[in-house]
């Protein structure tokens, strides 16, 4: 999933300074799963914004709505009846959702209420960790199902650096050494000999190297 974390309240308040009516829009997909911008978080933020405004002696009208998917134009249309009645939209979706709202409603201010973090997975209650950087040319088949691009702090593609200690990365005891994990997994799969296959310099054109990317599927157009 795409993970996100809510921005500090003060930053959100600052972005909507001068607004008296806002539309607070959540998303029912990834940000709901990582508890950053679903229906529940929309309700909590709405209350927090209203209370903060009241303290300043200002009235803030917050309309709440949570879309099925904020990165999908079809669902964005649900906002249409509200748009003319608010000064700004505050989106609790990932950056994709914020941009879809901005693309649809050209004359409406849209502010993000979360910081989009990474593509990751849940490692336990309240813990999400990065798993993929979307390089566009997946090499997980070569590395035992563990991505060194997303999970090695130096993006090393051919083995652990000299700082790997007791299975942990040199940057922090909290971070697993990706190549330690890869090696352990290779041993379990009985493919240790594959470690010495050199992975040559990557062609980053499949990633951000080629500029903003697009997928075109003729069969679906």
């Amino acid at each position, binding site marked *: 999933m795409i993970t996100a974390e809510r921005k500090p309240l003060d930053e959100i308040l600052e972005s909507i300074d001068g607004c008296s009516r806002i539309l607070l829009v959540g998303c029912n997909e990834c940000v709901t799963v990582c508890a950053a911008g679903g229906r529940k978080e929309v309700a909590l933020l709405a209350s927090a914004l209203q209370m903060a405004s009241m303290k300043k002696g200002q009235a803030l009208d917050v309309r709440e709505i949570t879309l099925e998917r904020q990165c999908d134009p079809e669902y964005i249309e649900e906002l249409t009846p509200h748009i003319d009645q608010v000064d700004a939209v505050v989106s609790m979706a990932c950056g994709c959702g914020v941009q879809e709202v901005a693309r649809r409603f050209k004359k409406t201010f849209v502010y993000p209420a979360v910081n989009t973090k990474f593509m990751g997975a849940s490692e336990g209650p309240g813990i999400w960790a990065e798993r993929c950087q979307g390089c566009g040319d997946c090499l997980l088949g070569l590395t035992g199902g563990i991505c060194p691009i997303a999970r090695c702090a*130096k993006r090393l593609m051919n083995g652990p650096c000299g700082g790997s200690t007791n299975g942990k990365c*040199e940057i922090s005891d909290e971070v697993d050494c990706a190549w*330690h994990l890869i090696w352990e997994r290779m041993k379990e799969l009985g493919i240790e000999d594959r470690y*010495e296959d*050199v992975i040559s310099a990557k062609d980053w054109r499949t990633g951000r190297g080629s500029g903003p990317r697009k997928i075109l599927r003729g069969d679906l157009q």
Partner: protein
Amino acid sequence: MKTESVLEKVLASGELAVTGECGPPRGALPDVVKEKAALLKGYVDAVNVTDNQTAMVRMSSFAASLFLRQMDLHPVFQMVTRDRNRLAMQSDIIGAYSHGINTMLCLSGDHPKFGDHAMAANVHDLDSLQLIQTVRGMRDEGCFQGGAEIKNPPKMFIGAAANPFADPFELRVSRLAKKVKAGVDFVQTQCIYNIDKFETWMEGVRERGLHEQVYIMAGITPMKSAGMARYMKNKVPGMDVPDELVKRMAGVPKDKQAQEGIDICVESIERLRQIEGVSGFHIMAIEWEEKVPEIVKRAGLHPRPKV
């Protein structure tokens, strides 16, 4: 011979080679580079010039290497993949070679977290092994990494680092084998304090015949004090300092600890030179370059061979 590198010539002659290290200053201070380099002249075959070591901005390795060349010293031009992409690295390699710098060391570099620019982007377009492949391709195939032909390709003697002490230990011989496969000519190891563990690693290296495919230079760093020994043991990732050494350093009065550190260093060289497959020593006397002549002389590695 693959190159004109003096280090390659010494290693190929079968003599134990000696390299030193010069960390460039954090400012436009050419005299600091020249003073450090002058201390090493005549006592080492080549001098590593570090590249923004510990992820702190310093005078570039290229510029400092150039000062060494002008003093008729032979720099080992260090290059980390952390700060530059393959365009920048290859252009620096051609530039350095144009100035007579023909020996280099390919590294991934310390993480920015450890330096004073923790907010910097971490490039890693290539990793250290891919940089080795790139430099070898430039030399042996006369091609840039992108495939185009190079006019007068740089003939670099290619080095890399090897850390026998990092984890997972069982992977460390393979890690060297992989660098050999990528085309490395020599490696300099992490500072060796745990000689028993180093011997175990070297056994694995010899079993695979790797010592006949790559020159292995044993890394040596003299410790100035018991405090430094404890710091290296506890704070430096991938460093293995046995308790006995810390105790030995702590067991002598403070004003004698520096001398004890030099003694340990000389004894280590004595023991390491007996190990089959050790081709030389890389003496990293960090901000203590003036001690290198004493270490080299006492270890019986002086005078340096004329090649």
